[in-house]
């Protein structure tokens, strides 16, 4: 996961060159995919936009899949998103994963003219329209906020019928929706482990309710950092990861989270049962534990938070590939 968020004092041209180096290293080390999230008006961070960034980085990672993780789908119009991501699927030779979720920030909803309370409806109508555009020839559909009048995407996707659709979901009602309309629930980095155990059982029941198969590919995202010990890892990332989560809490991310959980905690309480820190053995064991208990089989790690030096990121990318991935493969 390339978050590409930085503090607002950075030289972003230099940071972009570093991002290219990171992606080249990921490709060389055999990582399967890279992901990029989506926010607008990211103050107090600098952040690259998802769509142009993924398109630019794909040139330096020819062997990797690209994950739009996630698109704030309620904000957009389906024709636009269906077209953009079809083009990306073609340009990448069929390597795209389309992730979508609701979003929660007022500043984004206002700028895209989304009235409170209409987000879910927009999200669902948009996704339905995108699926139809991706699979059909000519689409006629009148949504509440758009009309497809004999419209078709300018280009079909390479992946048939379309790229995998992963749905980000926090609250139970959103997990239910993910089971109903998505190909997989894309589990976020900030769910607590105990919440996840409960929600994964809930997700499985929802899949049964909708008579849908268990996803063949099931992604789990976690914040991960490797050092000589758990304490050393926590000390190393504290200033960067702490800033990220206090900002997301201020943005309102805790609002849509499952009952009984919040991001408005002191850093040491926040990281309990949520983030994976430790030496390579400990990190590998915890990932194995997650995958066994949850059944997830695609692990998306992020190891860069605002302000963290490039060298720390490169070292962790390398350590994870050399010391953790083989142990996880062996252990599963």
């Amino acid at each position, binding site marked *: 996961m390339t978050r590409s968020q930085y503090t607002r004092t950075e030289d972003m041209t230099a940071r972009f060159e570093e991002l290219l180096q990171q992606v080249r290293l990921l490709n060389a080390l055999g990582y399967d995919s890279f992901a990029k999230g989506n926010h607008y008006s990211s103050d107090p961070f600098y*952040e690259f*936009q998802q*769509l*142009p960034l993924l398109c*630019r980085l794909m*040139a330096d990672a020819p062997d990797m899949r690209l994950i739009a993780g996630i698109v704030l789908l309620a904000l957009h119009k389906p024709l636009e998103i269906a077209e953009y991501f079809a083009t990306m699927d073609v*340009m990448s030779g069929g390597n795209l994963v389309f992730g979508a979720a609701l979003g929660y920030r007022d500043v984004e909803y206002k700028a895209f003219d989304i009235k409170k309370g209409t987000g879910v409806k927009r999200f669902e109508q948009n996704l339905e329209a995108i699926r139809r555009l991706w699979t059909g020839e000519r689409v006629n559909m009148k949504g509440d906020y758009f009309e*497809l009048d004999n419209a078709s995407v300018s280009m079909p996707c390479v992946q048939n019928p379309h790229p995998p659709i992963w749905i980000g979901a926090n609250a139970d009602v959103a997990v239910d929706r993910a089971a109903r309309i998505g190909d997989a629930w894309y589990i976020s980095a900030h769910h607590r482990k105990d919440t996840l155990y409960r929600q994964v059982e809930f997700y499985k029941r929802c899949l049964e309710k909708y008579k849908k198969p268990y996803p063949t590919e099931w992604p789990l995202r976690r914040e991960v950092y490797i050092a000589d010990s758990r304490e050393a890892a926590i000390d190393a990332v504290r200033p960067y990861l702490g800033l990220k989560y206090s900002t997301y809490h201020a943005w309102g991310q805790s609002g849509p989270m499952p009952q009984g959980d919040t991001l408005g905690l002191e850093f040491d309480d926040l990281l309990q049962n949520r983030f994976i820190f430790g030496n390579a053995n400990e990190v590998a064991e915890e990932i194995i534990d997650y995958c066994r208990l949850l059944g997830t089989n695609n692990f998306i790690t992020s190891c860069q938070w605002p302000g963290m030096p490039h060298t720390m990121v490169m070292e962790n990318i390398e350590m994870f590939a050399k010391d953790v991935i083989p142990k996880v493969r062996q252990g599963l």
Partner: protein
Amino acid sequence: MKYGLFIRGQYRANETNMNARFEELMEQVRIAEQLGFDDLISGMHYAGYPLQQFQLIPFLSRAMAETRHMRLITGIVLLSLHKPLDIAEQLSSMDVMSGGRLVFGCGLGYREVEFKGFGTTTKERVPRLIENLEAIKKLWTEDHVNMKGSHFELSDTTLSLKPMQKPHPPLWMGANADAAVRRAAEIVDTWFINPHQRMDTIERQLQIYKKALDDFGKPFPDELPMMREIFVAETRDKAKQIARPYLEEKYKVYHQWGQDKAMPKGDDNLDLDFDELTKDRFLFGSPDEVAEQIISYEKRLGVTHMVLGMQGVGMPQSQMLDSMHLFAEHVMPQVASA
């Protein structure tokens, strides 16, 4: 004179291997940079049936990786369809990633299927274009923007990333009708003269443009870009013969889409036979003939910048590359020495 290669990236609906076509386009981009083209430019349409087409922002973002020097021009963004925060953020990222090589071209659009798809109307397109552009300029140059538009509200909104170029990338605007030409004089840095207006129409509209610049107290722009369809071969007949089927196909589709409706009176018919259509509109010929025409654009109109569309729908890669080489190796030097 500067030169931009316009990559239309349009293909027939029955073309099945778009990934292979994409690789060809990347080859064109690399060759264009080697041959000394100054700019890379692409356009925007949604629901392009019966054509297939790469989307502008993803395409330019990816193509950027094959370039070091060429500017990247959005030619054009159909601005009334979009939200200003979205476009301001996407283009800012592109400007930073490219080291400050972005040019923002925008315009109105005219297709019903696009307006409906984006939940807007033809009637709203002019006010939305104007307020969107105003909002984008604010977002690019100010922090904590507050602005209430007819279809968006910026509430203490600060862009995730400002453009690298200060105060912002150059602004071009495509304009067909006289009113749009006046608007271009008022609200952007230069009028991007479109590919399908006849020479006499352009000469007339250029007077309107100059008058409007005077009215708004603005100087004549340093850069006056004009787009033309072009094909270079050993002779004019050969150029026309090669390019004809591919261009005819394109213009038939644009006529069906209703492009003519957006054009100025007296020059608002693209449903002409090919000879009539190409007259005073397209650049076909030997290197000598094409160079002569470009020199005349420079002298008669003050054009500083030729944006060249060379690949009609379905034209094979080898023919396209031949024309690019002939242009760069024989036309560019002739124009330079004149």
